[in-house]
């Protein structure tokens, strides 16, 4: 059991963690989520007594970490995979940690086997990949067979097999009744691993609930409705009809409508009754990732801006207006294919954007109106995480 009460950490004028209170219970995997720089690592360092809170306190099993008797036997932590002397072998690194807590040498070889590093145990950790470093860090955390485990971004740098392994390891550790606290900035990863979620942004608590509650609270179903573009007033007509019937309608950036609180057949009937032609009517579920992004939107510290590539790109060709990228799905052109093609624009799935040969721009531009219709395909790519 980990308990934080009014935990606050300030570095000069910058507040890293502000008045954070939560509990981490045993027997469950608790995910600790937040964007980069939201204070996750600072919080974990305070849990381990590495950083001193400006105010408030955090205890593990009722004791502040610094006064825990034989800490390595009670708390295991992976903070930073690279926090290892590169000249020391993996085995010697673990051996020095084991000796601190009076853990027998045999246990060192045991955990090396558990994390799959037995073959490189005698090698200097300098040559380890990030994934191997993570495994070594996890081995160090498991060494003392502790009741409380803290992992800071444990899946960073791991291959899919490794991610799967970590996921199962966490769940297994929790099933054994241990307290498992895992930080991540990936909602999708946590949705698969964690039982409970603590979300912070800019050092403040945004959410503290079970994954089940988080899903039901944040992943509302909605329908995506696209109205025929001619005549133009149809969209308003349908919006009015749907709102009257009790639906909530939000326009999407590409001209479609996002409708909630009305079942799909009812939307179809209302459209039919008001004589509106539909080009798309598809069921969707907001992903947890989306819910998480919405939640932390105001709390993101590092946001990228569009890359205009000023002065780096040749001027666009002079044929008419370029097709709108958001709408643009290239059709297979009639011209003979060249031997190379551009990848689909970012944010698009390859399956929806068939390999587009770089045809002369002139031949794509006339095809654009057709391309608009092509996007009237049922798309449920936003459903993902609920299938756990």
């Amino acid at each position: 059991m980990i308990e934080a009460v009014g935990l606050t950490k300030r570095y000069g004028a910058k507040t890293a963690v502000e008045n954070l209170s939560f509990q981490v219970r045993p027997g469950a995997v608790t995910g600790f989520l937040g964007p980069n720089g939201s204070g996750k690592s600072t919080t974990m360092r305070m849990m381990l007594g590495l950083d001193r809170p400006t105010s408030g306190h955090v205890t593990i099993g009722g004791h502040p970490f610094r006064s825990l008797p034989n800490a390595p036997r009670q708390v295991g932590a992976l903070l930073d995979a690279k926090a290892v002397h590169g000249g020391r072998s993996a085995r010697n690194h673990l051996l020095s940690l084991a000796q601190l807590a009076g853990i027998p040498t045999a246990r060192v070889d045991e955990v090396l086997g558990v994390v799959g590093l037995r073959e490189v145990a005698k090698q200097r950790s300098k040559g380890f990949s990030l994934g191997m470093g993570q495994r070594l860090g996890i081995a160090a955390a498991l060494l003392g067979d502790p009741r409380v485990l803290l992992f800071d971004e444990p899946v960073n740098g791991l291959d899919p097999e490794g991610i799967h392994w970590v996921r199962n390891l966490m769940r297994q550790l929790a099933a054994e009744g241990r307290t498992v606290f895992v930080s991540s900035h990936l909602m999708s990863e946590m949705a698969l691993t964690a039982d409970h979620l603590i979300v912070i942004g800019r050092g403040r608590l945004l959410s503290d609930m079970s994954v089940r509650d988080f899903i039901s609270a944040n992943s509302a179903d909605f329908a995506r409705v696209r109205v025929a573009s001619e005549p133009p007033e149809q969209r308003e007509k349908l919006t009015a009809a749907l709102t009257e019937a009790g639906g909530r309608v939000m326009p999407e950036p590409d001209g479609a409508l996002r409708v909630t609180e009305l079942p799909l057949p009812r939307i179809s009937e209302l459209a039919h009754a008001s004589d509106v032609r539909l080009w798309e009517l598809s069921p969707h579920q907001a992903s947890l990732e989306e819910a998480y992004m919405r939640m932390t939107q105001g709390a993101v510290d590092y946001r990228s801006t569009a890359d205009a590539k000023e002065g780096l790109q040749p001027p666009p060709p002079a044929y008419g207006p370029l097709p709108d990228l958001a709408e643009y799905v290239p059709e297979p052109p009639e011209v003979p294919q060249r031997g190379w093609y551009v990848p689909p624009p970012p944010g698009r799935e390859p399956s929806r954007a068939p390999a587009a040969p770089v045809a002369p721009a002139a031949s794509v531009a006339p095809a654009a109106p057709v391309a608009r219709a092509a996007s009237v395909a049922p798309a449920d790519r936003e459903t993902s995480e609920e299938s756990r």
Partner: protein
Amino acid sequence: MAAVPAVLNSEWTKIRTVSSTIWTLIAAFVVTVAMGAALSALLNSQFDDLPAAERATFDPTYVGFSGMVLGQLAMVVFGVLVVGTEYSSGMIRTSLAAVPQRGSLLFSKIAVAGVLALLVGLATSFVTFFLSQALLGDHRTGIGSENVLRAVFGGGLYMGLIAVFSMGVATMLRSSMLSLGILMPFFFLVSGILSAVPGAKTVARYFPDQAGSKIMQVVPDAMNSNPAPYGPWGGLGIMALWVIAALAGGYLVLKKRDA
């Protein structure tokens, strides 16, 4: 509470499993012995060309320890790396997460590394003495002569203390690069130069290396060196005060600051 013997054991494992330990200690030994031997051989052949004042205060023991000027630098590197690599690698966080009692961690580390440096220092000191005396020919002295054993033993102590002083400084600065960047020029250049500048002399004789090296002199103010207002043990005491100050500073920094 991580027991002190456990921490000592762990620190010993840490020290013996990195190659920098071996190399810096070997360097300290080889450089001190070789340079002392070379200078002894040289002075033996050119003794008659020395100025009269130096001939009058000729100190065969002190001549043998001439290599200490360079050898101590390897000890500085050893001391700095033992502490500094914990910070540069981030290992300090892993260590402190395992030993929340920061004082135990620091002093166990310094005890293990300090004892190791002291043992290597003593070995260096005795080997240097016997080899250099063998090369000094007629001008040699023996281990049984007055104050010679004290000087040879003191040479080992001096090397150990230099290493521990460096560990304290590295703990305060929390960086190998910064510590080496300050300590190396200080011991190699600044201290030596200032002790030759008339005005600064009186201050420079209280620097740790200037004060501590008096223990290696058998003849007072040997080889026409700066006369000092303290004796050999007084000098070593001054050096020990510097070491204590460095350790206290390091302890306070480790205790107060976030890791």
